[in-house]
């Protein structure tokens, strides 16, 4: 059972993943919706600019649902088994899933295949966290390693030894690593992704930490554990200067309502999610079609003509085996072999070679290749 940490805007309610379905409750704990499509959910995430509620379920299905209109945008089978490690990348709204084979896949709602698949660990992935600026990812696996990845090159930057049940990046780049009953906070003081320990906080020994989460715009880390929630102060983790038009901790009811309306008007379509969000509006690189050179075309033509010349025709019986007819038939075959090349010259398109050789065809079609009659 899990409560999603990124709440929906207050007008929609609070989604909770229960064992059978996902339910949405309002502030007074009344059940508003039962989302039947999200069956057996394990984790929920919310993409706020797109108004998309994402869930991963115990069958390994990733479901995107638009909360403002209610339609299911996508329902993909990850085909990598049950996984409950899901995190959203705040920079480009891509969902990262960690699987039990050590792979991490990145998904967008408009493609069946994942955007990227990375083999990160030798064992199951325990937790993922994305840096706010989009270039850094921290992953922890059951192979007792915590790795830092560069998301632009998809390469590992650093590897640390340690366990981590949960990871989270703060707005200022501090990394909270939660394991057992203590949480470590790491910091890269020089900004070169060389993370070193900064703070340590341990709870009472029996308490198991489930999830850590930094509070935005405050120097506070929230720790969810088996006996409740704790909050600790972490100096330097929050962004001190907020922008009123982005996120205002002191907003009034009227400002909140205006913001909701503007967010709905500026709702992004799911097609705008991509690995590099700055690609929108840029020029598409020209697709260079590989054109075969003139010599290659001529060679192909010769090969086709010689293959046609080598065809042995069946000898017909009952007086239908005239030599003039045989010659005519042979010439027909040769001109048929030449025709696509003439058409190509006229239209300027590359010719599609007929796959007549046994080795070109897939195995199930090989028996339909023209047999050379004996």
């Amino acid at each position, binding site marked *: 059972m899990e409560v999603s940490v990124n709440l929906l805007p207050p007008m929609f309610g609070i989604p909770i993943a229960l064992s059978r379905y996902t339910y949405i409750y309002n502030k007074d704990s009344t059940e508003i919706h039962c989302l039947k499509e999200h069956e057996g959910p394990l984790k929920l995430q919310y993409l706020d*600019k797109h108004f998309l509620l994402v869930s991963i379920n115990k069958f390994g299905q990733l479901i995107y649902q638009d909360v403002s209109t209610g339609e299911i945008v996508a329902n993909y089978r990850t085909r990598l088994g049950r996984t409950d490690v899901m995190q959203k990348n*705040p*920079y*480009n*709204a891509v969902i990262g899933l960690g699987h039990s084979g050590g792979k991490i896949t990145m998904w967008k709602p408009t493609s069946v295949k994942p955007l990227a698949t990375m083999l990160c660990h030798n064992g199951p992935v325990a937790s993922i966290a994305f840096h*706010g*600026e*989009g270039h850094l990812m921290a992953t922890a696996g059951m192979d007792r390693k915590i790795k830092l990845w560069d998301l632009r090159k998809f390469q590992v930057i650093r590897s640390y030894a340690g366990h981590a049940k949960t990871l989270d990046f703060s707005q*200022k*780049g501090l990394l909270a690593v939660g394991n057992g009953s203590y949480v470590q906070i790491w*910091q890269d*003081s020089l*900004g070169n992704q060389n993370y*070193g*320990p*900064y*703070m*340590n*906080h341990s*709870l*009472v020994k029996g308490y198991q930490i489930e999830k850590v989460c930094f*509070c935005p*715009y*405050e*120097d*506070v880390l*929230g720790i969810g554990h088996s*006996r409740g*929630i*704790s*909050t*600790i*102060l972490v*100096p*330097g983790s*929050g*962004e*001190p*200067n*907020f*922008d*009123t*038009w*982005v*996120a205002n*901790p*002191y907003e*009034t009811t009227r*400002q909140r309502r205006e913001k909701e309306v503007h967010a709905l*008007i*500026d*709702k*992004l*379509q799911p097609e*705008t999610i991509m690995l590099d*969000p*700055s690609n*929108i*509006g840029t020029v598409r690189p020209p697709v260079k079609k590989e054109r075969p050179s003139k010599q290659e075309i001529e060679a192909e033509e010769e090969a086709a003509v010689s293959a046609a010349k080598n065809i042995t025709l069946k000898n017909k019986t009952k007086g239908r085996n005239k030599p003039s007819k045989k010659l005519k038939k042979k010439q027909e075959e040769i001109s048929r072999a030449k025709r696509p090349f003439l058409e190509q010259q006229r239209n300027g398109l590359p010719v599609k070679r007929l796959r007549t050789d046994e080795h070109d065809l897939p195995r199930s079609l090989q028996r339909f290749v023209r047999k050379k009659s004996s």
Partner: protein
Amino acid sequence: MVLIRSNPFRFNRMPCRPGRVEPCPERAADAAAAPRTRARCAPRCSKTLFSPPIRVVLLGGGSLSSVPAPLPATHRRAQSTSSCDVTVSGSMKVKVISRSTEEFTRERSQDLQRTFRNYDPALRPQEKAVEYTRALNAAKLDKIFARPFIGAMDGHVDGISCMAKNPNHLKGIFSASMDGDVRLWDLASRRTVCQFPGHQGAVRGLTASTDGDILVSCGTDCTDFVHLSHWQFMHGSMLSGTFQSFGERVFIISCHVIILLNLILSVKDYRAVDHQWNSNLFATAGAQVDIWDHNRSEPVSSFEWGKDTVISVRFNPGEPNLLTTSASDRSITLYDLRMSSPARKLIMKTKTNAIAWNPMEPMNFTAANEDSNCYSYDARKLDEAKCVHQDHVSAVMDIDYSPTGREFVTGSYDRTVRIFPYNGGRSREIYHTKRMQRVFCVKYSCDGTYIISGSDDTNLRLWKAKASEQLGVILPRERKKQEYLDAVKERYKHLPEVKRIVRHRHLPKPIYKAATMRRTMIETERKKEKRRKAHSAPGSITTQPFRKRRIIKEVE
């Protein structure tokens, strides 16, 4: 999740400096006494800052002074977010974000809400996608609010042949029809202010002087006589005493005084008239080009080149001695008043119906041609057109520039009015109505906001220059929002979805079909040329650029 704020009500026993909270004495004592046992208790959600004391352990050592050092330098506060010093176990001081409500909220309900800005792009992920969505929505809203037609002014009983705008009075426009009726209209109320009777036949040309006092009209009457009338138009007061001194016809309508200054009769045929900028001279076009003065009844000078009628004339706004005319021998001629003979002549393949000078670039002029194109020329280099504006499907009858010099409006025989950019080959806007028939004259208002078209169906129509513009007084916030939407649409206008919406215009069926047919014809000609070129010796066939193709020759 509890947000920790410094709460002044909690520690009101001691006067606190803002941002610096002293620990309560008893708490500090407790903390100092048993730090270890404290830490082992279950940590409760802390509402105050000091219970329980937070154990800040620096792994890797470090003295007291090194505590603030590892904090990133960007932790400096641009806002008045104050840091709170947390005294831990009586030994170290650590700075945490702490904001006081009074600095971030307004004092009274009649104050404005406070806004704080942080322009860091890291706080705004996917901003290009947001901008693109806004551009798309703005394009759609533009189309929803596009209502360019304001109203029609009817009163004439015959088709409107020419119009004149008064450079000093924004609200009025003169129009003249084919039956000799000259009227002054008030654009705001769309009614006739006064009429100027006197012409017996069609009025061919109308022009007002730069100071707005003189209106010149010329035409042909049905008995083949020609009238040239002079009207002095004074706003405001009635001048009763000065009437008799002129001795000509005097008309008093409401509070305006109109005096017919000079009636010039001649047997010559006048086709157009234009007034010189900032001067007393005006030019008429007919069998030749005559230059007149207000007070004389004989022309001051005449120009002639060739034996064909001159059908339109225009003075240059920037260079007052320069004028250009177009004649029925398909030529455009440039004249300089200081010389005794015409300066230059350009002969094209088809006749030019009207010419307009660009007010902001006075060396360029645009000619509205009979072959449904407009050609922009540089007067210094007439052998090649600067730009060819192609979008009409029938002869272009009239053309007028916007006072900004960035675009011009054309009216055509194919019942449409189009607005072109001054350097672009395609129109940015087309206006058409079922009731508007052949458009014979168009004018761009002097403030660049309205377009007035006069057509064959005896109506003058008033249009907006920007179809979705909000007229009237706009609040500064609305204006800023509109400017932002225009800018964001401009940035993304090349993307296919936005382009499709911005470009889309409904065309009347005959124009759509005519345009398709024109396109096919041009395409076939082009293909034929291409094949001829491909099958002949390389270099034997040369294609002329389109800007030169319609010019026959230039003559000194």
